[in-house]
């Protein structure tokens, strides 16, 4: 039943394979296709991870703005802070606005100035964190205009940071797709060489098939069947290894790195969890590689037969 199904799928005639299994450099080709599938799976998985993380970062950053109040001579910081918070809260689309306390502001400066310093004597800028209910509906221009009434106040929408983030993520995605394309080209070239080798090795079989009235289409189907089987096996192995790679790297990142680093890496790559879309992409590697193998071998065989006749 499975043999018949595979025969139908590969357009190969049912029954014993006319192209002997050992006559195609099967093991070498299987290893090569497995490696190519693994590289494709890892590249695709990496692209998905970066893309998903970039979207998540961008969404998080886009939902938050910061109002900075710099100390200005003659101005009362606390009063300005309250006014700015009120203005922010009154702005349409803003969910919440909260001024960071002196302690929180000092904590932000600790990485640069060190811990345990008394900063009460220094006038440091104060920050107000503004949470947006919906970044699209928020009237940021109105808030910007209103804040002009407060001396030393400025609004940071993180637009530049988001722009850089999107550019970086886009570059990684395009590079990944380029690498995928190159892997595809290398796979096609390897299959062409393997097919031509198989044709040369099986020249006698091809001649006999011609003499008994086989069409080029029939002969190509027989070779395609052999290569599709190798492509399916290689694709499956590569995709399995790729999935295993992400499971291992996720586990290793959680157990080898210190907790702080794990948090940072997790923030960057989402704990290497591929999710449903990433898994689907990796599973798709199997039919794509198998189809690429079968189509390339079929075209190569038909071209070879046309040249020979």
């Amino acid at each position, binding site marked *: 039943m499975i043999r018949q199904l595979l025969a139908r799928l590969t357009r190969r*005639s049912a029954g*014993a394979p006319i192209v002997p299994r050992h006559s195609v450099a099967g093991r070498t080709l299987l290893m090569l296709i497995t490696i190519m599938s693994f590289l494709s799976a890892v590249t695709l998985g990496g692209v998905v991870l970066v893309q998903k993380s970039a979207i998540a970062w961008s969404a998080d950053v886009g939902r938050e703005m910061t109002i900075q109040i710099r100390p200005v001579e003659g101005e009362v910081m606390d009063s300005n802070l309250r006014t700015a918070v009120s203005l922010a809260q009154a702005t349409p689309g803003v969910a919440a606005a909260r001024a960071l306390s002196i302690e929180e502001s000092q904590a932000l400066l600790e990485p640069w100035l060190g811990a345990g310093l008394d900063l009460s004597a220094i006038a440091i800028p104060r920050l107000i964190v503004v949470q947006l209910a919906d970044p699209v509906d928020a009237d940021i221009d109105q808030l910007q205009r209103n804040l002009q009434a407060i001396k030393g106040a400025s609004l940071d929408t993180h637009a530049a940071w988001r722009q850089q983030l999107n550019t970086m993520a886009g570059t990684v995605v395009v590079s990944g797709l380029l690498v995928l394309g190159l892997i595809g080209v290398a796979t096609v070239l390897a299959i062409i060489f393997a097919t031509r080798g198989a044709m040369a090795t099986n020249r006698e079989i091809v001649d*006999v*098939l011609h*003499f*008994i*009235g086989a069409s080029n289409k029939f002969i190509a189907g027989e070779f395609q069947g052999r290569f599709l089987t190798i492509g399916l096996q290689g694709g499956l192995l590569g995709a399995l290894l790729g999935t295993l790679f992400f499971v291992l790297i996720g586990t290793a990142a959680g157990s080898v790195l210190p907790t702080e680093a794990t948090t940072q890496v997790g923030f960057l790559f989402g704990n290497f969890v591929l999710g449903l879309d990433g898994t689907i992409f990796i599973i798709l590697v199997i039919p794509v590689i198998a189809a690429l193998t079968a189509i390339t071998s079929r075209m190569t065989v038909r071209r070879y037969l046309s040249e020979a006749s």
Partner: protein
Amino acid sequence: MIEFSDVGLRYGNGPEILSDLTFSIEPGSFHFLTGPSGSGKTSLLRLLLLALKPSRGKVTMLNEDVGSLDRDSLLQMRRHIGIVFQEFRLLDHLTTFENVALPLRVLGQPESEYRPNVTELLEWVGLGERMHALPTVLSGGEKQRAAIARAVIARPKILLADEPTGNVDPELSSRLVHLFAELNRTLGMTIILATHELPLLDRFSYPRMVLNKGTLTIHD
């Protein structure tokens, strides 16, 4: 059935291997094709098998001008021609049954349909007990009978044999020619059997096509 008119054949820019071949073969006839080594027997058989195109002249087979046929029509016509080689050319990784069934697989017949016919033919050529054996364990005579069975399983109208007795002893040679004669008589196949074994020719009274230095004469 087969008609050659002023046919010539050369390979590339070389001299003519076959010159001015003009003859016709009637349906259901049996001819020996003979001549010394290098006289062009195999080239003539390749022309008859449509594996080569003549350099000049006209070849008509089964009432069709071969020169005017496209690739698909040539393929269809080739399916009416069976061929037996001196070196058997069986596929060593397939059993005797699978080798003989190959032309029917090529035609797209399912195994359930061709199995009884192949089994019956193998019994007829005396290979019923050996149908699951690989060619590597068959004797020369068994291999040649398997090759003949493969050539006739799809009931071709024309059967060509290129030195089919070249690799077997004289006793077996004679039995193989009897097998061809039986196929000619019972199935009405047109048979052209190439051989250079004169004692074999003398044992049978079929017409002889004699090739010498690329020219052909027919002795009835």
